[in-house]
Structure formats: C-alpha cells, structure tokens
C-alpha cells in the first residue's frame, strides 16, 4: 500500500481498524487512514460508502464499535464534539446547523464551549474571515445570507478554535464554480500554515485538483489509497464504484418537433417566508429537447417544479401549457392525463412514501393515468393488485432496480435504486413531457449514469424533457439546451454547446454579484 511511506507515528491523525456496526450492518469496516501534517487529504466514496459515519466517529458524534484513533501518536477516545474540538479537530458539516434568525456572531458564539463576549467574537471572526479571504459581516442575519456565505460561517466557526485538522463534508455541493474556487484558495492557505484538511467529496476533478492524497471507501471498506494526481478520473471512479461506469452517449440534435411544454411570464409569490418567489419565468421545450436548468440550491428550483407539476397550481391558466392546452390552474392529475410525468427532488415523503411497498408507490403516481389498468369495481375503485404488481416488476426489470424481495418497502431500497424506480415509474408511461428535479441527487454513479441515459433516450424518442439540476457535469451530459435559474429568475436558454462552465457559473451567481461585493466592502 502507498501508505507505507507515511509512518503512522508521524501522522497528525491515524485511524486503525476503525469499525462501526449498526446492528449487524458494518457502516465502517476495519478502516485504516493516516492524515499527515499540512496535507489536504481526500475521502472519496459514493453515497452510503461510510464516509459520513467515519467522520462522525472522528468528531465524537458516534462511538466506534472497534478500533483505535491516534492523535499525534497518542491513542485517544473522542466522546463528544467538545472533546474533538479540544484536541484540535474542526468540522464543517454538509447540512449547516445555523439559526436563521440570529446574526453570524451569535451563531458562532453558540458553538463555542467557553463564554466569550460577543463583541470579541465578532472582532475575531471579522479578522479571521479577512485573513482567509472569506468576507463575512459578523452582524448580518443568517437568513439574509447566500448558501456560500453560510458555509463561510461554518468554516470561520471551525477556524476560530484554531484547529490542527479541519474536516469538510461535501463543501462544494452548494457552491457555484467561482465560490468553489474561493474555497480552494482558503484551503491552500490553511495547508501553507501547516494545518491538515480532510476533504470529503465524490467529485473527482475537484479532488484531483486540490488534494495531496486520497483514501477511497466502498461499502464501508477502504478500497484504495493513492495520490489522486497520479490517477485518471476513470481509475478513481473504478475504485469508488467497483466497476467501470458507463458513459452517457450524447443525444443527436437533429429531430426537434412541436412545442410540448411552454411557460410564459410566470410569476409566483412565495408560499412560505423561506420560499423563493418566481419572477417572470418563460421557457419552451420541444419534443426531442432536454432543457437543463442549472442553479445553486434554493434559487427557486423547487418552486418552479411545484408550478410545472401542478402540485401548487398557479393563478393564470395560460401561464403554463402542456401539449397546447392551458393548464396553469389545473392540478397534477389533469397534467398527468395530458401525458406529462414528474419526478420531484425529494425521494422520501414526496416522490415516494418510504413505509409503503414499491407497488403502492407505483399507484401513488399513476392511479389516474392508468386507472383502466389499475382500478376495478366501478365506483368502489378497488385497486387491482395483480396488474399493479406486474407493472412494478416490469419497471424494476427495465431500470435494473436491485431490491430485497419481490415487493419491499420503498424505504428499504438504497437511494440510487429507489430513484431508478421513481424515474422508471414515469418512463414506463412514455410521457410526452417529463419534468425532473435533481434526477441523480445523492445517487451512486452507476445508477446516475443509467438514469441520465434513460432521460436522453426518452428525448430521442420524441418527448420533451426538463431537467432541473445543481450538478453541472450532469447538465453537460444530458442537455440540448441550458438555462440558469438565480433568485427565482430564469435566464434565456442557450444551446448546450455554446455555454462554458465559467459562463454558467457567472449566470448562477448573476444576481448575487452586487450583494457579495457590497458585503466584501463592509467586511473590510
């Protein structure tokens, strides 16, 4: 193993045979890991590979079942995040733990173990954020900040403890490419000061760009330790997935047909205080097209999906037309009957009911569109279990859904397999219009490539597809047209070949620009 050149004794943190069992399931199975002083170490792996479980043990959130953790050569037991912080471990979680109604300084104060006057915290936070190129106004309310800025709070909060090791969990999943670049500069600064970084990600090109070493996890075990710069994305992906990942064959851009879905000047006010209003959104999708809508999370994607699906109908019938019918005020069932299919972002509790069987989850989306096949007994509307089960099996086979048993509860499937089922449930109808929100969010690479290929094939067969996604790689893989959503406004669409990553990045940050600049001035 290539680890042998770094003896465990000289490492900042050394993990030996660390194991965590949940019942009989080994989330982490005899993991070895060494992090040297002043290195950026990548922890690579798909969702469910055990990355989060491992770092939770390092940060004292979970207790290891077996194994040892050595900190600067000394065996330690980390019983709580407080212990971890005292040792010198700081952590930035993927899901922020911030109080939106409090200011930046107040949020930082809450995480500190000792009581320090708030003014001093604000001063220190301001100084630190300036030193590391993370402009931040300590007196701003969190609710008013962008996702990137919120992440800075978490990072500054970790840095204030002057840690020797900082753990970052999927930090770029919520950032624009430009914001990510800024973050990388900060990480290089930390490295230059001799601090170590444990960087968790499943984005290969990022890891290759900034990390000195990488440890790859699969199914709870270490499957490789390497220098990512010596590897190719394909070889890293192989270590992560265990087999080669099929590449999506790009759609040909020949046969575009009639407009199947169009939205004109749609404005929707925010339903809740934390929702993003849609402002004057227009789009058209023809058969054969895949319109991808890029954007940073929380810029109106969910609201746009709700309006398109009809889960929350809009006030004007003409604002949305599906196959030339004005459907703005109609609900999701009417739109399904016109041949539209929908895949929401959240699998559990929105696209599927976790506790219900797969066959029930098929009825969930198709009780009306397939009522002739699925319902009997005239007005009693008795569900025909036999027909539903047959269709469930057909979908599972078509999409290669791996499951335990014939008809298990949706919640027992892995994210990727459930997503394949949810997408397959719509594809099975051959919808004329398909709207998908974050089709491969939190899905393993194998399933993701399968889903993307299915979307491309659907469009090729003459359907109109809208893909709302935060994942630029995915967008470049499937889209024929790309538009960008930012603060509830949708940009004009561009043909996929004409847009560079940088251009999309600028559009994604587009309306944030002015604000960020003013806050930068504020912080200085």
């Amino acid at each position: 193993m290539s680890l042998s050149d770094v003896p465990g004794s000289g490492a900042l943190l050394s993990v030996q045979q660390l194991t965590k069992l949940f019942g009989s399931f080994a989330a982490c199975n005899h993991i070895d890991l060494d992090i040297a002083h002043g290195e950026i170490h990548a922890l690579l792996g798909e969702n469910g590979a055990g990355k989060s479980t491992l770092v939770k043990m390092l940060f004292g959130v979970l207790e290891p079942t077996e194994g040892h953790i050595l900190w600067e050569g000394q065996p330690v037991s980390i019983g709580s995040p407080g212990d971890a912080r005292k040792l010198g471990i700081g952590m930035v979680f993927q899901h922020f733990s911030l109080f939106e109604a409090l200011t930046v300084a107040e949020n930082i104060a809450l995480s500190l173990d000792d009581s320090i006057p708030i003014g001093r915290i604000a001063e220190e936070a301001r100084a630190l954020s300036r030193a590391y190129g993370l402009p931040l106004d300590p007196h701003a309310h969190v609710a008013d900040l962008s996702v990137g800025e919120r992440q800075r709070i978490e990072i500054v909060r970790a840095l204030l403890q002057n840690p020797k090791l900082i753990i970052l969990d999927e930090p770029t999943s919520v950032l624009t490419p430009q914001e990510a670049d800024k973050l990388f500069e900060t990480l290089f600064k930390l490295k230059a000061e001799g601090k170590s970084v444990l960087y968790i990600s499943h984005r290969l090109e990022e890891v290759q760009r900034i990390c000195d070493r990488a440890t790859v996890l699969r199914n709870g075990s270490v499957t490789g330790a390497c220098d990512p710069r010596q590897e190719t994305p394909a070889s890293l992906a192989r270590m992560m997935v265990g087999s080669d990942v099929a590449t999506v064959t790009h759609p040909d851009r020949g046969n575009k047909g009639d407009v199947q879905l169009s939205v004109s000047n749609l404005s929707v006010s925010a339903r809740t205080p934390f929702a993003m209003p849609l402002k004057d959104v227009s789009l058209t999708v023809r058969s054969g097209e895949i319109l991808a809508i890029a954007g940073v999370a929380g810029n109106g994607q969910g609201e746009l999906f709700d309006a398109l699906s009809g889960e929350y109908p809009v006030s004007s019938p003409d604002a949305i037309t599906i196959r030339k019918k004005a459907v703005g005020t109609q609900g999701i069932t009417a739109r399904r009957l016109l041949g539209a299919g929908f895949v929401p972002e959240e699998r559990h509790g929105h696209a599927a009911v976790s506790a219900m069987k797969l066959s029930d989850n098929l009825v969930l989306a198709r009780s009306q569109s397939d009522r002739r096949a699925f319902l009997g007994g005239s007005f009693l509307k008795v569900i025909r279990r036999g027909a539903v089960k047959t269709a469930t099996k057909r979908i599972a086979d078509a999409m290669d859904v791996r499951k335990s048993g014939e008809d298990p509860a949706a919640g027992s499937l892995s994210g990727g397999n459930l997503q394949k089922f949810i997408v397959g449930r719509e594809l099975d109808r051959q919808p004329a219009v398909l709207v998908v929100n974050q089709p491969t969010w939190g899905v393993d690479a194998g399933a993701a490539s399968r889903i993307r290929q299915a979307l491309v094939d659907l469009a090729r067969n003459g359907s109109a597809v809208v893909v709302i996604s935060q994942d630029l790689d995915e967008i470049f893989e499937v889209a024929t047209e790309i538009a960008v959503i930012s603060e509830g406004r949708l940009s004009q669409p561009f043909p996929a070949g004409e847009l560079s990553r940088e251009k999309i990045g600028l559009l994604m940050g587009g309306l944030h620009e002015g604000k960020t600049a003013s806050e930068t001035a504020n912080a200085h």
Partner: protein
Amino acid sequence: MRIELEKRPQASKLYGFVSPLLALALTLIAGAIMFAILGKNPVEALDAFFLEPLLEVWSLHELAVKAAPLIMIGVGLAVCYRSNNWNIGAEGQFTIGAITGSILPIVFTEWHSPAVLPLMLVMGAIGGALFAAIPALLKAHFNTNEILTSLMLVYIAQLFLDWLIRGAWRNPQGFNFPESVPFPPEATLPAIWEESGRAHWAFVFAIVAALLVWFMLKYTLRGFEIVVLGQSERAGRFAGFSSKKMIWFSFLFSGALAGLAGISEVSGSIGHLQPAISPGYGFTAIIVAFLGRLNPLGIIASGLVLALTYLGGEAAQLSLGVSDKVTRVFQGLLLFFVLSCDTLIYYKIRIVWLRVRGGVA
C-alpha cells in the same frame, strides 16, 4: 450504562402482533400491584375484574352493549388517525348524534310509523357528522389545531344536552327528574336475541361498519388515499390527493359513526334522553383505535377488551368495594402500555455498558 433505541430497518411484523399482547400483560401486572397496594388480593381482584364478567350469558350481552359504541366510534377514529387528522371529540359527536336522533321520539311524539327508527339513525349520523364539520372547517380553512377544537366542542355538546334535558325536553310527567319522555317501542332499537339478554342491533352495526372500513382501507383507492395522506401530505399532493378534502372526509365519516353510536345507545340501551348518556365512550374509543392498531379488525377485538374494563369496573365495585375509577385507571394503563410497547415495533432496545475512557475527557 445507557439504553439505546436502535431503529429497525423495517417495522417488525412479530412485534406488530406481540406488542398489544405485551401491553395487556403489563397492564394486568400493574393492575395487580395497584390492587395489592389497595389491600386487596390481586389474584381475586383480577379474577373479579376480568374473568367473572365472561362467565355468564347476561354479562356477555352487556359486553356486546358496551363494545358496540366503542367499536363503531373506534373504526371512524381509525380513518381519521390513519389520515393524520386528530379527532379527539368523538364524545361530543356521540352526544350531538344522540340529540338529533332523538328529535322524532321527543318532539314529534304523535307520529307513529315504522320509518321512525331508520330516520332516527340517519338523523343521528347526520348530527354527529355536522358537529364534526366544525373542527374540520376550522382546520381546513383556518389551520387551527383540530385536537384542541374537537376536544373543546365535547364540553359544549355535553352542556347543550344538559340544558336541553333540564329545559325544553324535560318530561312534563317526569316528577322534575332531568329526563326526556321515554321512547315509544317503534323508536327503540330491538334486541338481537331477546330471550337471552339485552344486546341490541348496535353491535351488528358496529361489526358491519368495521368490516366495511376494513375493506375500504385494504382494497380501495380511497383507503390508499387515506394511508398516503396520513404518511406524507407532500406525497399525497404529488399523487393528486387533496389533504383538505381528506380533512372533510375523515371528520364527517368519523362524526357520522360517532353520531350513529350515540343514537343507537340512547335508543337501544337507555330508552330516553338524560344528561349522562355515556361513560366516556368517545374517549375510550381512542384507546380502542390504538390498541386495535388502527385496523378495523383489530378494533373489534380491542373494543371487546375495553368493554370488559367497564364491566370489570362495575363488578369490582360490587364484589371488592373499590371505586369504579379503577376502570379509568385500567384504561389509562392500557393506552400507556400500548403506546410504549409500539416502540418495539420500530426500534430494538440495546443496553450499552459504557467503557472506561482514556485520553481526553
């Protein structure tokens, strides 16, 4: 040492069945301790409470009489609770159903017809449904908490009945007792099997209602809608179901069944209207619904068990000389143990002996 609850990957089928039995056993043990503290022989007391009422034919009839309203209300509540609508006011809907159902025999005393009884039952069901429509309206349009509104309406219904019986509907020939005129024979729900005891048709209604609701929940799209909306409103919306319509449906449905139970009780068991017509059936039915796992077939069984606590309470009062509050204690214990044993369906219990820590502390 600490005790950890570990989530099971899937709900345990075994404990789905064992948990209510375990809850029953724990209730009996706690009950035995309670009797011992009261200075009674626990074995004798439990025997008097739970076994003796089952040994005689007439008391089996009583069991059916007490179980009928519990089951009828319980299956209605199961529909509510499965769809995530928390109707706690069945007692009030029961009371109003009894009042509206009694309009014919009390106000229109001169009208004699075989149609009286069926009309009474229908009017009782409508009354209960309309009274349940109040919390439904408040929840659907003003987003109020239905637990509070439906519960508060119970007291309004009970005081309204009290006012009615002491006022306008008091029997002029009743020596100033707070009672209505007695119902004529054609307004009385007949006994099922007259020769052996007084169990009346309400019990048949209850069983039929339970079977119909069971069929609806298990086989029909409506039942599917109820379960989906109960699990996740968002998924229900995605399926094209309306949670607002479900608020209306579940409240009107459970209100109608509670109202039907109310008029059946008055017409079949009491024979006139009086201020106290229920020993808390509407509240006990909540326990019945949960002990029966919100499954109509389970509710038939749990309705019989809870009916036994009423009979046992009466028997214990006579033979042991303890207060009939014992009934409420047993019902409370049962609900407590049922809800806590349900944890075992979704979680495993593990006892972790904490290791001695080295390093930092």
